[in-house]
């Protein structure tokens, strides 16, 4: 029991230590729930340039935090989502968009899969049709018809 009394505070310290560390790195939020909500929505569609397979919302990287701060400030200044995206795109290029825009360079990306699907279906249908045509339609003879009748009964 006394041993537990000594260890309990130590254990508590150990448990709290990581929390302490986390609090220190937490970024400053704007305090405005509307802006935070908009930021959350917008940053899910933006890429973190440092860890490229993460969105700006998920990324713990320093640059991502800076960009979130930048977005917050611009939202406070009354910029629309479109203006903010244009701002980021001008600096970091299309790559910052997680959802590529539909424009001539991305046509292949957006419509390529459907073109492939369509081609596949056409090939499939023509194949089926060719096979069907290849099987000669031969009417049964009277003898065959009688045997089939027998088997069915």
């Amino acid at each position: 029991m006394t041993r537990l009394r000594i260890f309990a505070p130590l254990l508590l310290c150990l448990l709290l230590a990581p929390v302490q560390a986390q609090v220190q790195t937490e970024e400053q939020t704007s305090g405005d729930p509307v802006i935070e909500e908009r930021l959350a929505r917008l940053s899910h569609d933006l890429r973190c340039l440092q860890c490229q397979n993460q969105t700006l919302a998920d990324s713990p990287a320093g640059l991502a935090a800076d960009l979130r701060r930048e977005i917050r400030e611009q939202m406070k200044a009354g910029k629309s989502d479109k203006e903010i995206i244009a701002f980021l795109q001008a600096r970091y290029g299309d790559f910052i968009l997680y959802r590529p825009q539909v424009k001539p360079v991305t046509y292949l990306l957006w419509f390529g899969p459907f073109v492939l699907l369509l081609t596949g279906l056409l090939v499939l249908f023509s194949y089926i049709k060719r096979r069907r045509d290849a099987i000669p339609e031969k009417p049964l003879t009277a003898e065959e018809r009688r045997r089939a009748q027998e088997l069915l009964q």
Partner: protein
Amino acid sequence: MLRYLIPLGLFLILTIFLAIGLTRDPHTLPSALLDKPAPTFRLAQLKEPSKTFSADDMRGKVWLLNVWASWCVACREEHQFLPEYAKVVPIIGLNYKDNPEDALAWLSELGDPYTLSAVDLDGRVAIDYGVYGAPETYVIDKGGTIRLKHVGPVTPAVWSTKFLPLVQELNRK
């Protein structure tokens, strides 16, 4: 015969595309700011905090903007080559999200090849330049237009193939 050649052809095309993909580094992105005016800024200088530096101060000169930080490992690798490049073209450092004390210690330890370094404490100027990692180096021409962006250390090979010819050409203009 053709029915065997078509899949083989498709396979070869796929292989070629994948092989090209392997040689490319997905971390290097084309700069959106290429051939655009270099964003203006005014920042305190690292060695003389009372003085400021603006990109406009370099009008009429071809210069390099080199984004560095004392916490950046690749910057250390690159740093040894910079004095050689500084003989050809002025290099302005952008000390990116660094502790000024650490930055000064870094320069006194490794030498200071920079004409001067500007302090971008919170990374705002870096955002304007589309910086996403250090080191990054920009070539800016006499008219203040960004002509080249290089992400990663400017090794002697990169210098002699990408930077030197461009700097020489821009200086002639």
